[in-house]
């Protein structure tokens, strides 16, 4: 069986600066795959290119056996690929419920209401505050909303960019537990994280990015025990 997502020799440049320098990786159905690395390693750029917000200068992206390298961003979500962007990017002046429903914008089926209930079941606080403007939320609540919104498109593959950024340890744990829950419910996940420890613990597979290139890859457990990773990303000497 071919992988659900297959990225091949991907290169992305901002003007003359190459942010991603020919990386290849794949994500199989049911996996949690994580990309780790420091700021500026090209993780966010990679996700933004996969979801169509950026155009690669070369390389290809295949999703469910379809070449999506040049598919516009607004058509990609309909294929079953959702992207919860870095910094959460909820719509601040819309209510929580309106934000969630925008996640289902591309859908034409009649089960959106059920999925709204599912999102509320996942994060009950969202239901309590469903009419509140999303801009008044704390970081953790906004992250829940961003994830709930992404799930509203019924994705087969969910890309999460730095979901734990700026959160309290408690909230971070809550978000990471949800990642596992979503995986158990059948969503494949591509997770970008600076918190390498938390990400690798849950990952079936991980890739380490350094200035635009993949320097190391392996199962989550392998990377967790790798000396290089421990030194560079887990703060051990």
């Amino acid at each position, binding site marked *: 069986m071919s992988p659900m997502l297959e990225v091949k020799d991907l290169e992305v440049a901002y003007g003359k600066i190459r942010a991603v320098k020919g990386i290849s990786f794949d994500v199989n159905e049911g996996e949690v795959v994580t990309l780790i690395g420091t700021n500026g390693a090209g993780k966010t750029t990679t996700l933004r290119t996969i979801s169509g917000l950026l155009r690669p200068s070369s390389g290809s992206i295949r999703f469910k056996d379809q070449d999506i390298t040049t598919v516009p961003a607004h058509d990609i979500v309909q294929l079953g690929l959702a992207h919860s962007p870095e910094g959460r990017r909820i719509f601040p002046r819309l209510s929580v419920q309106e934000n969630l429903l925008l996640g289902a914008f591309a859908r034409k089926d009649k089960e959106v209401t059920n999925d709204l209930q599912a999102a509320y079941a996942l994060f009950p606080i969202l239901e309590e505050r469903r009419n509140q403007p999303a801009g008044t939320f704390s970081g953790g609540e906004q992250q829940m909303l961003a994830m709930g*919104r992404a799930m509203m498109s019924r994705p087969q593959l969910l890309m999460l960019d730095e979901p734990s950024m700026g959160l309290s340890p408690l909230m971070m744990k809550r978000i990471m537990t949800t990642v596992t829950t979503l995986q158990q419910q059948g969503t494949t996940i591509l997770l970008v994280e600076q918190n390498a420890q938390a990400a690798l613990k849950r990952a079936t597979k991980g890739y380490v990015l350094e200035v635009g290139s993949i320097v190391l890859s392996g199962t989550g457990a392998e990377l967790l025990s790798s000396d290089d990773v421990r030194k560079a990303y887990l703060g051990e000497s």
Partner: protein
Amino acid sequence: MDAFAQQLVNGLTLGSLYALIAVGYTVVYGIVQLINFAHGEIFMIGAFGALSTWLIFFDGNLALWVLPLMILGAVIASVTTAVLMERIAYRPLRHAPRLAPLITAIGISIFLQEAVRLFYDEVPFFDFPDAKQRVPFPQIEVVTGPAFQLGNVTIQRSALFTIGCLVMCSAGLWYFVNRTRTGKGMQAVSQDPDTARLMGINVDRIIVVAFAVGATLAAVAGVAQGLQVTNINFRMGFLAGLKAFTAAVLGGIGNVWGAVVGGLTLGLVEAMAVQFIPGTFGGSPWKDVWAFALLIIVLVFRPQGILGAKVVDRA
């Protein structure tokens, strides 16, 4: 007291017209951060669209049932022009520096004025009047004619029509923005275009819709203006457009309800200034001075406008 009531009516009428046009500035700005200075010409073309519809199909017929069809003609003319303008002139400049589309807007504005001035009477197959001077606008029954008297206050029928147009258009706009899928998409794009794309919203389409919505309201305003002033001309969009832009800034540019509030405020200030500022600086010749003075005061002391709070959520 009578004078005040009279100016209240005049101000609301004028303000309704400004508000209808101002919505077009603000909706487009909210989506693409572009001041479409050619929007006044969309208003002018609406008036000519209505006139053309009347000349082609109903020449000489002033019955009320003709009016909706004239409005339809106005809307078709305005929306077509606005959509073509976006497609041909603005879209290729989407990622250009801000100054480029602004200069383009001024160019389009002059282009449209001159096109109407020079070619209106040259349109093949139709016997249109020369538009180099004022062209009489059909005075439809019921919405024009003898004014109503309320005590000492005179209320023109066309004034009631204009205010009614604003009320109906605002209600329609509210419904569209808050209750339809496309309207929700529009709000999403104005708050965060990239993330809107991730939701599956086609941003190019939303931009076209924004231009079309603005053009629709401007077209209605064009008809209202024709009925009120009894004639139209190729330059009518210039000052009206500038005033409506002022109204949009006054209310808070990017905020749809700000355009309505700003339009009505500007209309009332103009009317009251004409009546109540005494001496040399009073009276109708000075009304434009006071209108733009108000713009400067707002820009200095409350640059975000009366309702605007747009700046906050740009991270």
